[in-house]
């Protein structure tokens, strides 16, 4: 269904032969990457530490500039866009949360609407709506500070902050990292539902190939700054790239062993 709907529409995010290096060219963080994200799609980027995933995201909202190639958002070259306005219409969930410690939960969630000059009561209403959306109790959490929240609650606030100004595009950098598997799974499922309901275009970075296989419409595999493979989970699982095959071995083995270990009725 998704595929037919998006085939002909222009991509929401498009990278064309993008290069980015650091330290005067000694570190090639992103190397000749071309990648398109269609409207309504949830794309997962997987890859090892230092493979260039975060760098790729930061290029999209112009926190850094590409050395070569083009980055387009909704068909517009980001080079031509006002970076402040651009960032205000893209929601971002940062690696490790990065909530503002001096602002309450409501202050954190309402920050982009505030920057956009929304009226006070509209912001308050939006904050409550988002707390419901990420399934946090309004009264209990609204005026708490980040250090008074659990890790999972903080991640939810991070997601809510990214969604506050009703962006069409959401960039998420390991939003569910460092959580226990149950919470992680629940949060992932919750977000997948939100993504569908709000018709978002999402780029989600994860270390965890299993998470990517279960949540994403399409998967992009990064390795040493290069895009090794992209496609639907089924397409990627048929990849002939040795690194991708290696990546997929882990979930395969785990699935087999779990299948053998766990009783079929699930009454553990």
């Amino acid at each position: 269904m998704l595929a037919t709907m998006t085939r002909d529409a222009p991509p929401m995010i498009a990278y064309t032969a993008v290069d980015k290096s650091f330290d005067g060219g000694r570190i090639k963080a992103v190397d000749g990457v071309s990648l398109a994200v269609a409207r309504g799609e949830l794309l997962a980027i997987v890859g090892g530490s230092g493979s260039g995933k975060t760098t790729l995201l930061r290029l999209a909202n112009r926190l850094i500039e590409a050395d070569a190639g083009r980055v387009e958002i909704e068909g517009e070259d980001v080079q031509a866009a006002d970076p402040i306005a651009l960032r205000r219409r893209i929601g971002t969930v940062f690696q490790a949360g990065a909530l503002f410690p001096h602002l309450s939960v409501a202050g954190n969630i309402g920050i982009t609407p505030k920057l956009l000059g929304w009226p006070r009561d509209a912001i308050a209403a939006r904050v409550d709506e988002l707390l419901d959306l990420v399934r946090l109790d309004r009264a209990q959490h609204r005026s708490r500070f980040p250090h008074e929240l659990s890790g999972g609650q903080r991640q939810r606030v991070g997601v809510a902050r990214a969604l506050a100004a009703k962006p069409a595009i959401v960039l998420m950098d390991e939003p569910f990292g460092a959580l226990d598997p149950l919470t992680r799974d629940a949060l992932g499922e919750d977000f997948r539902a939100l993504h569908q309901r709000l018709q978002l275009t999402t780029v989600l970075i994860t270390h965890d190939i299993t998470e990517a296989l279960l949540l994403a419409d399409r998967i992009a595999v990064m390795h040493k700054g290069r895009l090794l493979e992209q496609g639907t989970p089924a397409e990627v699982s048929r990849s002939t790239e040795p690194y991708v095959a290696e990546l997929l071995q882990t979930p395969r083995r785990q699935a087999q062993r779990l299948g053998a270990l766990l009783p079929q009725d699930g009454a553990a």
Partner: protein
Amino acid sequence: MSLFADPRWRDAFANLPDYLGAHVRVSLAALALGLAISLPLAILARHRPVLRGALLSFAGIVQTIPGLALLALFYPLLLALAALSLSAFGVGFSAFGFLPAVLALALYSMLPVLRNTITGLDAVDPALVEAAQGVGMTQRQVLTMVELPLALPVIMAGIRTAAVWVIGTATLSTPIGQTSLGNYIFAGLQTQNWVLVLFGCAAAALLALAVDQLLALIERGLRLRSRVRAALGGLGLAALIAATLLPSLAGARSTYVIGAKTFTEQYVLAALLEQRLAAAGLSATTRAGLGSSVIYDALKSSDIDAYVDYSGTLWANQFKHPGLATRDQVLADLKQDLAKDGVTLLGEIGFANAYALVMPRAKAEAQGIRSIADLAARAPSMTIAGDYEFFSRPEWANLRKAYGLAFKTERQMQPDFMYAAVASGEVDIIAGYTSDGLIAKYDLVVLDDPRQAIPPYDAVLLLSPKHAGDAKLRDALKPLPGRIDIEAMRAANLQAGSGSTPDAVARALWEKVKPR
């Protein structure tokens, strides 16, 4: 006797509203100016390594200049600027008191504020800065909405340090004419009134402590994000400022300002002038503890209205006449010089206060020393002490030339300690003052000066240009000239140096010498 029954406490308390108010005013202005300069500079310099290094080392160097010297340096600087502005734009300003004090103290406050602001901003997590940019903040919004709030506790700690430094150092602004709690300390040191010194120190310390604690409350409030605490601290600070400023602002403005230099005799004479004005129904305040080089300029620009100076001092130091002259010549020259500045010489007080070489009577008799000429032969094995300026004054050069004097060692001392030092044998001879009461107290003798190397310095009463034609002022002070001889002044100085307040001494002195 209870410690607090001492009448000197009452005197000290009577001046408190005035001194404390002035102290708070100058500290507050300096701190505000310091912050207004340092905060933007710190923000500007943060990402500019060269500027940052230069600023921090500049502020660090300022910090190593002793407070008194820094304050003293600003006076001639501003004086020159004022003269420049007067000739260029036709408007001058007072280089006396408030302005130089505020500027010097503001400079003094810069280091902790600069350092803490830069460190505080540096310590903000880069991930948060990126998040701030990522949610769509402009560079300025990142600074004001994220970086500054997060660095605030560290910045506040710097402001606290600066506040304590400024309040403490403001006590040193007395010699450049800014009333402060230092008035207690300087007056107390000169008149050996330790109650006063203690009172001044305690008042300044308490003020610094109170401000520090209130700022700490605000800082904790900010750190713990407790608006109540921060508000309480702010309120307390506002209340403290209001309480210290209001009484001094509400106080009636005095019409006349009397000046006094930094030694006992000057305190007594200033008290006497003030009493004479009061008796004539004129209100006056005293700016005491003014530096010798500050006070004449202050009179010339009508920042003070009357004080007593010494003919030879002005003749040699202010008007730079070379060599020596007779007493009458000095006075004649001086009248001309003063007239050029518009300053009125109302008259000679009646005594002269000159430098004199002084030693214990017993020792002088035993060694057969009567005059400086006798001394010359023994000088190479002797130690001489003088005040901080003596050895660089023309009198000293003249003395050495006239008698061929060469001492083993020359030592500089606080004037009030010299006499005890020579009496105890710690030094052999001192350059004292002829009118000093301690000469009698320690049974010292003044050595004759047969070659008249040191001119006698008549005490003269001067009036500011602003009040040159002020008949009320002239009439009130008219009875003074010619009334106080050296004996009376010595006795008064002795009394003032042994614990009586200058006020009481001046009253007793007038009782003794007033026209009947």
